[in-house]
C-alpha cells in the first residue's frame, strides 16, 4: 500500500516538475535578432523585426542547396511597441522571441522629436527583453532600412551590426558600444547626458535588401557605424564626428585601443601609434564656488608607422615624440570639450564626478547645470609613453637616396 501511494506521488511530481505551463516549442518561436523603431508622421511607432530563417542558418548540406536570405524583416505599426509585437502575428506565423536580440536601432527622427524615455520604458519592463542588446541611432535613414541590409560576412545582418559596434569600440574607440542597460543608466542619471553611436546606410536600400548584394566583391550598399549622437534630456541634439567623438571616449576612459597620428618635427612626414592602456582620471575641484575639472590622461602605445626621418634609436627622440603625441591627444580632447560646452550637454559625466566628490556643492549647482557646464574651466593633461617601435628601429625613409 505504502509503495503504491509512493508511486502515485512520483507520478504527480513528474507532472509538476516539467513546469510546462510556460512552454515555448522551438518550432513555434521566431527568433528576433534585431529590432528597429521609427515613428510615422501620424505618431505611430513603425517597428521592424529582423527574424532568422532557421533553415538558412543551420549548418550542414541543407543550407547549401537552398538559396534565400538568412533573415526576413517584418514591419508593423502601432501606438505602442508591445502592440506591434503581438500584431505582427498577422504576418509572422510564429511567436516572437526576443531573448537572442542583439541590436536595437532607434530612428534618428524619433530620437530627435520624442526622445528616448518613451521608447525605453518597454525595453526595460518587458520580461522577454534582454538588456544586453546594443543600442544604436540610425543616421540619415530610418531604422528599418538599416536593419534590412544584407552583407556577405555575417549571414545575420543584426550580428554584423553588433560585431561592428563592438569591434570599432575595441580597436578604434570613437564610438562606444552601449547596451540597453548602459543607456537607461545614463538616461536616468541626472548629472550625465546620453551619447550613443550612430549607424548609417551607404548606397541604395533596395539593392542592399536583395541577396545578390552578397555576390558583389565590393558591395555598393552597406551599413557602417557612423558618428556619436549627443542627447540632451533624452532628446537627440546633434552629432559628433571622428576626432570630436573620440574626445568623449578619451574623457570617459572608454578607449581600449586606438590609433593616434602626429607630425614629427618641421612637418616632415607623419607617424602613427597604436594606443593601449589608457587611464583617465577626472579630478573635480571647487574654488570660490566655481567648479573645475582636471582631466588626467595617461596612456601608452607603440609606433606602427613612421614616415619621417628621425632616429628612433635615440631616447631623446622618443621623449620628443611622446610630447608631440600627448599634444595631439590633448588637442583632440580640448576640441571635443569645447564643442560640447557650446552645445551645453554634459555627456562626459562631469556633473556626476562633482556629485561624487562634492555632493553639497553639487546640490546648489545641479538646477542650473547645463549653463554652469558650458562655462566651467576644464583642464586637460595628457602624458604619453611610447613603449616600442615595432619590428624595425630606424624608419625606411632614412634609407632613401
Amino acid at each position: 500500500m505504502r509503495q503504491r501511494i509512493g508511486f502515485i506521488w512520483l507520478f504527480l511530481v513528474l507532472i509538476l516538475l516539467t513546469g510546462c505551463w510556460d512552454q515555448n516549442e522551438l518550432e513555434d518561436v521566431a527568433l528576433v535578432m534585431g529590432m528597429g523603431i521609427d515613428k510615422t508622421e501620424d505618431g505611430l511607432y513603425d517597428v521592424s523585426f529582423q527574424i532568422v530563417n532557421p533553415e538558412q542558418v543551420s549548418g550542414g548540406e541543407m543550407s547549401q542547396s537552398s538559396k534565400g536570405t538568412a533573415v526576413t524583416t517584418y514591419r508593423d505599426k502601432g501606438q505602442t511597441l508591445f502592440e506591434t509585437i503581438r500584431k505582427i502575428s498577422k504576418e509572422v506565423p510564429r511567436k516572437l522571441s526576443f531573448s537572442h536580440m542583439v541590436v536595437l536601432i532607434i530612428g534618428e527622427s524619433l530620437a530627435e522629436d520624442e526622445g528616448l524615455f518613451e521608447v525605453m520604458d518597454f525595453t526595460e519592463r518587458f520580461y522577454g527583453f534582454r538588456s544586453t542588446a546594443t543600442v544604436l541611432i540610425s543616421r540619415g535613414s530610418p531604422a528599418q532600412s538599416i536593419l534590412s541590409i544584407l552583407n556577405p560576412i555575417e549571414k545575420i545582418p543584426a550580428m554584423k551590426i553588433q560585431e561592428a559596434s563592438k569591434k570599432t569600440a575595441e580597436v578604434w574607440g570613437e564610438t562606444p558600444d552601449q547596451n540597453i542597460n548602459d543607456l537607461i543608466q545614463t538616461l536616468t542619471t541626472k548629472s550625465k547626458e546620453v551619447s550613443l553611436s550612430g549607424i548609417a546606410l551607404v548606397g541604395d536600400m533596395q539593392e542592399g535588401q536583395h541577396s545578390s548584394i552578397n555576390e558583389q566583391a565590393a558591395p555598393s550598399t552597406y551599413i557602417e557605424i557612423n558618428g556619436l549622437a549627443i542627447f540632451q534630456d533624452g532628446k537627440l541634439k546633434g552629432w559628433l564626428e571622428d576626432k570630436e567623438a573620440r574626445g568623449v571616449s578619451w574623457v570617459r576612459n572608454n578607449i581600449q585601443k586606438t590609433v593616434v597620428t602626429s607630425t614629427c618635427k618641421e612637418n616632415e612626414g607623419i607617424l602613427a601609434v597604436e594606443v593601449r592602456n589608457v587611464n583617465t582620471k577626472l579630478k573635480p575641484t571647487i574654488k570660490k564656488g566655481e567648479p573645475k575639472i582636471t582631466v588626467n590622461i595617461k596612456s601608452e602605445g607603440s609606433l606602427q608607422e613612421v614616415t619621417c626621418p628621425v632616429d628612433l634609436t635615440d631616447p631623446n627622440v622618443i621623449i620628443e615624440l611622446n610630447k608631440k603625441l600627448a599634444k595631439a591627444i590633448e588637442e583632440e580632447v580640448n576640441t571635443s570639450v569645447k564643442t560640447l560646452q557650446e552645445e551645453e550637454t554634459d555627456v562626459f559625466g562631469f556633473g556626476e564626478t562633482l556629485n561624487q566628490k562634492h555632493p553639497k556643492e553639487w546640490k546648489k549647482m545641479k538646477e542650473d547645470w547645463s549653463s554652469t557646464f558650458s562655462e566651467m574651466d576644464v583642464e586637460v593633461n595628457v602624458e604619453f609613453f611610447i613603449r616600442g617601435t615595432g619590428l624595425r628601429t630606424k624608419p625606411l625613409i632614412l634609407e632613401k637616396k
Partner: protein
Amino acid sequence: MEKAKISGWQLFVLMLLFELGTAIVINPGLGAKKDAWLTVLLGMIIGLLLFVVYFVLYRLYPDLSLIGYGKKILGKYAGTVLGVLYLFYFLYIAVRDLRDFGELLTASTYIYTPIFVINTIMILSVAFVLWHGLEVLARTGEFFFVILMMVGVVGTTLVLGSGQIDINQLRPILENGWKPVLSILPLTATFPFGEIIVFTMLLPYLNQPRLCLRAGLSAMSFGGILLTWVVAMDIAVLGIYVASRSAFPLLSAIGLIDMAGLFQRLDVAVVLTLIIGGFFKIAIFFYAALVSATELFKVKKYTSLIFPLSIVVLLSSMSVASNSVDHIKKGVELVPYYIHLPFQVGIPFILLAIALIRRHIKSN
C-alpha cells in the same frame, strides 16, 4: 511537542537560509537609495540586539517556546491571548511570504502560469517536508545551504570577473544625509533580521543549548553581510536609478553577466536562489504557526494540523492583496510598523521586563 532535536550547525544553516530568504532578491534597503547597504548593515546590528533579547528569554526558560513562556510570564489567560496573537502573526507572515514568492516567480519567469498553481506547488512541498518533521527540514537545509553557497560563489566571481561593477555608482555616501537611511531602518531591521523571532519556537529543540547564541549571532551576521554585499553589488552594477526601479534588482544585475560570451544568461541562478530561500522562509514560519497551534489548543500531533492550515495559508495568500502593487505597498508601509514592530520589539521587551521583575521578587 515533537521529539525532534536539531544541532547547533543545523540551527545556523536554517537561520542563514531564513535571513537570505526572499530578502536577497527583493532587497528592502533600496528605499535609502545609494546608502541601501548602510541601512541593511545597521538593520543587521539592531537585529543582533533583538536576538540577544530573545536569547535571554530562552535562557530563562530553556525548555519552553515563546508560547510556553508567554503563559508562564503573563499567566494563563493573558498568555493564551498572546499565544493566539503570535499564532496569527506567524500564519500571516507565512501567507505574505508565500504571496511574495508567487509574485516574484510569475513576474520573472513563469509569465503565463497562474500564481495559484505556483503557490499550491510551493505549499505542497512545504507541507510534505514538515510532515516528516523538523529534523528533515533541518537536513534539507544543510543540503540546500551547500547549493546556495555554490551558486553565490560562482555568481559573485562572474560578476566581478565580467567587469560590470563600477564602485563609483555607490558614491557619494550619505548623499542626502542620515535622514533617508534612518527612515528606512525600521524596514530593514524588521525584514529580515527581526523576523528571527520565529526561531523562539524552534530553540527548545536545540540539542546543544550553549551553541544557541553563537549559532544565532553568526548566522545573522553572515546573512547580514551577504545581504549588504548583494545590495551594494546591485547598485554598483545597475546604478541606483535602475536598481531602485527594478522589481528584482538581483535578477537584472545577474542578467548582465557576460564573460567572454561563454558565461551568460545566468538569471536562472537567481530564480533558483529565490526558490530555495522562499521555501525555507515559508516553511519556518509555517512550522512556527503549527507548533503554536499545537501548544495552544493541546493537539496531540502537529501533523494533523498540516493539511487544514496549508489550505488556510494557500487561500489567504491569494486573498491577502488584490495585486502585486497592493501587496508590496502593504509590505512596505503597514507591516513593518504595525505588525513587525510590536511583535518583534514591543512584546518581547515587555515579556523580558516582567520575567526579570518576577525573578527579582522571587529571589528576594
